[in-house]
C-alpha cells in the first residue's frame, strides 16, 4: 500500500512538474510582451520618449530626387552648418531615386509618415491635400538675410529671381513651394568629336545644320567601322523627353490663336477636350501636331538603337565616354559632366536650333522656347503632417538666404534662385533666353489617355526605318497583285499609288529617299490616328474622374478662407492679411468657376455626342 501511495505521490509530483513546464513557454511570452509594452510606454511617454526627444532635439526631414553630381553632399554640408547654428536641431536628408519618387511620396503622404519637406512635382489636388499654403509666410522677410544690405527686410518672396513664382500654384492661387535653384536645358556637344567627325567648330545655326552635322557624324562612324561606338546623339528615354519638351512646345505654340477660348494664354484641358470632341480640332490631321511629332522622329533617327529602353545615366555615360557627340540635358548635369570629362575633351553648349522658314517644319516652328518666365525649381513644399512647421520653414529660410543659396548652387553648379547670388562661370551658355514661345498644349490627360499615349508614342518614336532591301521588296510587291500589295502596305501603298498618278508601277522614279519620306509620313499617320481614336474613347471619362478629385481643393480653400477670416478678426486687417484674404477669396472664386466651367464643358460634350449619335441613328434608319 505504501508503495502505491509512493507511486501516486510520484505521479502527482511529475504532473505538477509537467504542468509547470507547460506554463513555462506562456510565462516567457507574457514576460516578453509585458517587457515590450513597458519599453514602448517608456519610449512614448517617459523622459526619453519621442515627444521628449522632439522637445530636446527637433528633427527636420526632407526628401528629394536630385541625386546627380554633388547635390547630396552639398546639401549634407548645408545641413551640418545649420545644425551648428541650431544645436538642438538635427536635419535628415532622404534622397530617393527619381523613378520611384512619385510612388514613394504618395505612399508616405497617404500613410502620414512623410517628411517635413518634400520636393514637389504634382498637380493641385495632391498639393492642396497634403501641403501647407505658404502665402502668409512668403510675405515675411527671411531672417537669414538680415545682414545682407540688398535683401534685408525684404519679403521672402521678393528675394527670389522669379519673385518665388516657382513656388506659386496657378490652380490653387497660393504659394506652396520654396525653390532652391533655376534650371535651363541645352544641347551639350563634344568639341573634339564634332571637329574630327563633322569638321565643325561652331554650334549649328539652324535645325537643317544640326541634322546635317548628325548625318556627317553617322557617315564618319560608318566609314570608320564605328557605327556602334560613335553616335551623333546620346539617346535615352530621358534625352528624348527633353527634345520632346522643346520641339513639341515650339511646334504647337501656334495653336493658341485658334483654341485658347478664354484667352488666358494656355489651352486648358477643357478647351482642348471640347475642341477635339466637337471636331473643331482634329489631332489626326492638324499640321502643328504633325510638325511636332515628325520633327521629333527625324531627330531621334540620330539616337542610338533602342534609346527608349535606356536610362538617363546610360546616355550621360555614353556622352562622357565619347561614344556620342551630343546630348541634351539640363544645367543639373553641367557640374558633374564638366568634372567627368575634364582633360578628355571640351564641351560646347548651344540652344536647341530651330529651322529656317524654308527648311522642313519651318512654317510651324518659328520661335525658340522662352525661358524668361521660367520659374525656379528644386522646389520644396511643407507637408501638413510636419511636427515642427516653423523649424522646417526656418531651415528653408536658411537654404534660401543669399549666402547659403550661392554656396549651395556653386557646389551643385546650378543657377541660384536668389537675387544677387553669384553664378558659376561655366553656366554662362545656360543663361535663360528671353524671347520665344512656350508650351501651351498637351495631348493627354492624367489617367488612361496618358498611359495610351505613353505606350503608343514610345512605339512610334522608337521604331526603326526600313532598309534599302525593304525598298526593293516594296517595289517588287507594287508590280505584283494590287490587292495583295494594298493589304500588305495599306497607307504606304496608297501614298505610292497617289504618286503614280495613274501610271503603271515602275513608270515613275521612286528612289529610296522618297520611299523613306512616305514611310515616315505613313508611320506617323498610323500612330496619330490610333491615338486620336483612343483619345476620343478615353479622355472624357478621364476628365470626369479628375473632376471628383478636383472637388477637394475647393473644400480645402474654404478652410484657408475661414482661417484668414479669423485672423483678420483677431489681428485686424493688416496689409499682409488683406492680401492673403483677397488672394484666397479670388482663389476660391476661381476654383469654383473652373469647376463649374469644367462641368459645363463635360455636359456640352455629352449633349453634342448624343446629338451626333441621334443624327447618325436617324440616317441609319432612313437607309
Amino acid at each position: 500500500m505504501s508503495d502505491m501511495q509512493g507511486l501516486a505521490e510520484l505521479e502527482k509530483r511529475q504532473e505538477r512538474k509537467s504542468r509547470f513546464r507547460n506554463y513555462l513557454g506562456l510565462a516567457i511570452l507574457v514576460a516578453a510582451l509585458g517587457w515590450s509594452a513597458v519599453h514602448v510606454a517608456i519610449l512614448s511617454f517617459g523622459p526619453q520618449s519621442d515627444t521628449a526627444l522632439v522637445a530636446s532635439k527637433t528633427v527636420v526631414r526632407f526628401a528629394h530626387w536630385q541625386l546627380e553630381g554633388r547635390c547630396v553632399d552639398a546639401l549634407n554640408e548645408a545641413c551640418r552648418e545649420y545644425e551648428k547654428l541650431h544645436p538642438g536641431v538635427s536635419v535628415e536628408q532622404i534622397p530617393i531615386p527619381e523613378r520611384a519618387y512619385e510612388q514613394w511620396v504618395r505612399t508616405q503622404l497617404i500613410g502620414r509618415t512623410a517628411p517635413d519637406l518634400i520636393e514637389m512635382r504634382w498637380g493641385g489636388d495632391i498639393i492642396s491635400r497634403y501641403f501647407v499654403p505658404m502665402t502668409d509666410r512668403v510675405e515675411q522677410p527671411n531672417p537669414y538675410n538680415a545682414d545682407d544690405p540688398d535683401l534685408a527686410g525684404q519679403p521672402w518672396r521678393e528675394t527670389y529671381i522669379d519673385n518665388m513664382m516657382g513656388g506659386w500654384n496657378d490652380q490653387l492661387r497660393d504659394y506652396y513651394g520654396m525653390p532652391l535653384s533655376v534650371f535651363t536645358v541645352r544641347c551639350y556637344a563634344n568639341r573634339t568629336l564634332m571637329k574630327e567627325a563633322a569638321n565643325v567648330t561652331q554650334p549649328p545655326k539652324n535645325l537643317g545644320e544640326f541634322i546635317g552635322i548628325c548625318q556627317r557624324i553617322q557617315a564618319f562612324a560608318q566609314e570608320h567601322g564605328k557605327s556602334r561606338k560613335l553616335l551623333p546623339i546620346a539617346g535615352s528615354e530621358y534625352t528624348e523627353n527633353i527634345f520632346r519638351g522643346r520641339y513639341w512646345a515650339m511646334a504647337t505654340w501656334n495653336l493658341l490663336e485658334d483654341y485658347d477660348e478664354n484667352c488666358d494664354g494656355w489651352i486648358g484641358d477643357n478647351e482642348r477636350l471640347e475642341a477635339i470632341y466637337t471636331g473643331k480640332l482634329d489631332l489626326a490631321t492638324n499640321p502643328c501636331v504633325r510638325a511636332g511629332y515628325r520633327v521629333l522622329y527625324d531627330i531621334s533617327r540620330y539616337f542610338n538603337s533602342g534609346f527608349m529602353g535606356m536610362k538617363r545615366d546610360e546616355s550621360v555615360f555614353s556622352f562622357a565616354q565619347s561614344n556620342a557627340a551630343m546630348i541634351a540635358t539640363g544645367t543639373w548635369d553641367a557640374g558633374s559632366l564638366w568634372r567627368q570629362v575634364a582633360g578628355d575633351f571640351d564641351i560646347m553648349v548651344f540652344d536647341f536650333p530651330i529651322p529656317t522658314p524654308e527648311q522642313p517644319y519651318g512654317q510651324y516652328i518659328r520661335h525658340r522656347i522662352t525661358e524668361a518666365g521660367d520659374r525656379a525649381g528644386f522646389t520644396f513644399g511643407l507637408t501638413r503632417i510636419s511636427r515642427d512647421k516653423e523649424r522646417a520653414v526656418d531651415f528653408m529660410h536658411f537654404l534660401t538666404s543669399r549666402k547659403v543659396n550661392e554656396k549651395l548652387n556653386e557646389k551643385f553648379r546650378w543657377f541660384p534662385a536668389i537675387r544677387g547670388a553669384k553664378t558659376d562661370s561655366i553656366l554662362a551658355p545656360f543663361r535663360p533666353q528671353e524671347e520665344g514661345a512656350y508650351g501651351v498644349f498637351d495631348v493627354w490627360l492624367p489617367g488612361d489617355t496618358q498611359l495610351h499615349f505613353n505606350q503608343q508614342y514610345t512605339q512610334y518614336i522608337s521604331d526603326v526605318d526600313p532598309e534599302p532591301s525593304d525598298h526593293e521588296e516594296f517595289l517588287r510587291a507594287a508590280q505584283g497583285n494590287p490587292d495583295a500589295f494594298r493589304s500588305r502596305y495599306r497607307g504606304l501603298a496608297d501614298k505610292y499609288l497617289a504618286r503614280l498618278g495613274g501610271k503603271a508601277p515602275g513608270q515613275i522614279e521612286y528612289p529610296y529617299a522618297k520611299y523613306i519620306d512616305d514611310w515616315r509620313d505613313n508611320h506617323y499617320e498610323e500612330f496619330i490616328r490610333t491615338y486620336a481614336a483612343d483619345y476620343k474613347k478615353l479622355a472624357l471619362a478621364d476628365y470626369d474622374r479628375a473632376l471628383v478629385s478636383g472637388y477637394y481643393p475647393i473644400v480645402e480653400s474654404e478652410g484657408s478662407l475661414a482661417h484668414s477670416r479669423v485672423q483678420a478678426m483677431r489681428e485686424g486687417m493688416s496689409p499682409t492679411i488683406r492680401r492673403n484674404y483677397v488672394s484666397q477669396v479670388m482663389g476660391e472664386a476661381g476654383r469654383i468657376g473652373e469647376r463649374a466651367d469644367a462641368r459645363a464643358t463635360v455636359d456640352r460634350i455629352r449633349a453634342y455626342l448624343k446629338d451626333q449619335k441621334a443624327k447618325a441613328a436617324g440616317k441609319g434608319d432612313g437607309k
Partner: protein
Amino acid sequence: MKNVTFRQVRHLWPIYFLILPALSLIALFSYYPAVSATYHAYFQWNGDEISEYIKWDNFTRALGDPVLGASFGLVMIFIATNFVKMVPSIVTAVVIHRLASERWRYLYRVAFVIPMIIPGMVWLLLWKYFYNPNFGVLNNALDATGLMAGLQWLDVQMPMLARLITPARDAVLQPLFGGIWGFGFFGLVVLGSLGGLRGLMKGWLWGIGLLAGAWGLWGPPLPDWATYHFVEGLRRWITNPAVLARLAHMAALLAVAFGFGQVLHKRRPWGSSVIKWTAALILATFAVLVVTSAVWTEPTKAFTSASPPSWLGHSKLIIPALLFWGFPWVGVLGVLLYLSGLGNIDQSVYEAADIDGCGWLRKFTHIELPLIMTQIRLTLVLMIIGTLQDWGLVFILLGDSGGPGGVGMMPGLYMFHEAFTVGEVGYACAIGLLLFVLIMYLTIINNRYVRVSK
C-alpha cells in the same frame, strides 16, 4: 475531425493564447488590407479620403479595359513559357540524383545553393548588361558567331513564310474555328473531353474555365448594357442573327469535341489513346502554325539596321528578351525541391526497374517523374502565382507604362500604375480582386486535377 469542447478549450487556452500574437499580425497585415481592398473596389477611391461609391463601375471598366486584357494575354504567354522552363530544373535534378558518387552529389547540391545568396538586383543588372545593345554579351556573341546574320535572314524569311501560310491557314481555320487561336483551343477542349461528359460534370471547375475560354474565342460579344436597359439590351442581343449564329457555332464546336470524347473514352484500350493523339496532333499543328505564321509576321527590322538590336528597347524584341531571361532556366529552388523528392525514392525501386530491363528514359517517365509530382505540383502553383503577381522586373526594365507600345504591361504593373501613378486606388483594388479570383481558380484547378501518383 473531433470537435474541441469548451472544457478542452479551458484546459488548452495557453496554446490558443500563444498563437494569438501571430494571428493578430496576420490579420493586421494580410487580411485587413485584403478586406479593405475588397471594400474599396466598389469606390472611386484615391487611397485617402476621397471615396465615392460607384457600385460595379470599376469591375465593368476592368472587364472592358483593353490594356488589362492585353496584360492578361501576356501573362498567359509567360505562364506557358515558365511551364516549359520548369523542364531544365527537373532534368538537372534527375541528373544530379543519378550521380554515382555521393560526394559529387553533395557538391552539386551546394553549388546550387550558393547562387541563392546573390541578391536579385545583381542578377537583374547582369542580365540588363547582357542585353545592352552596344556593349552587351548577347549582341557581341551573335556577331562573333555569325548568328546575327542568321537572325537577319530569318527576319526576311519568317515574315515571307507567314505571308505564304496565312491565306491558306485562314481559309481553313477561320470559318471552322474562328482563327488559329480558336483552333489551338479546340485541341485543348478535345483533351478536356478525355473523361467524356461524366468527366466534365465531375470536373465542373475545369469545365467553367473551358466554357469561359470558348466564349472568349468563339462566342458573341456581350450585350451593350450601358446603352440599353437590361431587358431591352438582352432582347436586342438575343434577337440579333449574328449573335445567334455565333452561339450556334460555339455550341457546335463544343458538341463535336465532347461528342468525340463521349464516344471514344469508354472504348478500351484504344479509345483514350485516340483522343490523346488527336489532341496532340491538333496542338502540335497549332504550335507549328503559331511559330510559322503568328509570331514573326512582320520584319522587326531590328537586325537589319546599322545599329545593333536593342533587346529591351524595341517593341518587337522585348517579349522574346523577357522570355529568354534567366537562360538556361535552372531554378535553384526547383532543383533542390525535386532533389528532395528524388531522395525519397528507395534504391530497391531502381533495382526492380533494372531487373525489368528499364532504360534511363523509362526510369525517368515511370519512376522519377510520377514520384516527384508533389514537388512539381508545388512549383507549378508557386510559378503560376508568381507569374501572375510579378511585375517588378518589367517595372525596373521598362517603366510603369510597360515599354514601347506597352508590350510589357503585366496585370500587377497595371494595378501599380493605376494606384500609385494615376491615383485611382479603387480601380487598382478591383484589378487586384480579379487577379485574386484568377489565381485562386488556377490554384484550385491545379490542386484538383494535377494528379499525384504514389
